Structure formats: C-alpha cells, structure tokens
C-alpha cells in the first residue's frame, strides 16, 4: 500500500526573504473563477475557467527586528512582489515543488496585533499574480 507522510514544515520566502522561522501557517489556493458558458440547447449549466485569481495567506509571528517580519513586509504594502512556498527546505524537485506567485499584490498589513499574554502574530494575504511551479534543482 502506498504511504505518504507529510510533516508540515514548508519553506516560505517573500520578496526573496526567507521567513520560514516566523511562519506558522501558509495556504496557497489556486482559483479560476467560473465563467458561465451555457448556451441555448444546453440541458445543464456549463462553466469555463475565468482569469486566474490565486491567493496566498500567511500567518506570521510579528517581529520588528531588523530583517524580520515587519522590515520585510512594510515596503510591499500596496505593491506587487514575488512569494514562494515549498513543502520542505530541500531542493526543488518533483516531490518538493516550489509554488510561486509572481507579481502578487499585498493590499494590507496589520502593523500591530497585540494581545496581553500572547505572542503577537499577523495574517497577510497576497492576491493575484501569475502562478508557476518550479521542480528544477537549481
């Protein structure tokens, strides 16, 4: 019987900066909004793919230290950038593909999200951009 084990430990880079040690959750969703293509004579609704509208959501510990979460993201709000997530830190391969959104847009950044007695963390969402998968060992 085939077995598959996956320890959730993805590599995350935002604008080429490695944020793996700040990230606690990452979800990259491919989405092609359905476009209705039903015509006269059809007996059921049919749909085709609209423009790709992909999205990456990250949960990050907030850190204001140099080269950490805030420093990396503050200049990217309202701008496009490149994000990349990968199942593990190993090199790119067919079994460890690098998922890339190029030209993805960061609309908002919570600059402070503090709760007494809790580690501060934030959620950021990158929207749109072109999607690609890198399986080539550099």
């Amino acid at each position: 019987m085939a077995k598959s084990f996956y320890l959730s430990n993805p590599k995350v880079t935002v604008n080429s900066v490695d944020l793996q040690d700040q990230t606690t959750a990452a979800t990259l969703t491919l989405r092609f909004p359905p476009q209705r293509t039903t015509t006269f004579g059809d007996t059921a609704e049919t749909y085709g793919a609209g423009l790709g509208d992909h999205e990456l959501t990250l949960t990050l510990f907030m850190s204001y230290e140099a080269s950490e979460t805030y420093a990396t993201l503050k200049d990217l709000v309202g701008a496009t950038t490149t994000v990349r997530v990968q199942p593990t830190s190993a090199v790119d391969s067919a079994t460890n593909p690098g998922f890339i959104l190029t030209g993805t847009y960061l609309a908002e950044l919570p600059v402070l999200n503090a709760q007494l007695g809790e580690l501060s963390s934030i959620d950021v969402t990158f929207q749109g951009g072109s999607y690609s998968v890198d399986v080539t060992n550099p």
Partner: protein
Amino acid sequence: MAWISKHRRIGPVGSPFVPNAGVNVDALERAGFIERVPDEQSPQTKPAARKVTAKRKD
C-alpha cells in the same frame, strides 16, 4: 546594476544576489537585505583572475 546579500535571510552574506522576476529590489535595499554595488565590483561579474604560468627556462 548588481547586488550582494547583506543578510543570511536572502543568501550567504556577501554573495551575489540575483533577483527573480517580480522581486522588489528597492524594498530589499531599504530594509537592509541587499547592497547595491557597481557591476565591476560584483563578485558575480568580476572577471576571474588571470592564470599566470611561469615560462619554462630551458
């Protein structure tokens, strides 16, 4: 224009940084991750030292 890494988060410090498509190098520079260097100083574009071989004396 060339860049070198100033922080381990984007690669070994001092190594050449080659931005992929869509990477905002201005933001990286402002945040102190990379440093702009003239092309001729870039470790990447610097020509390899010429190999000098001593002439054999007969």
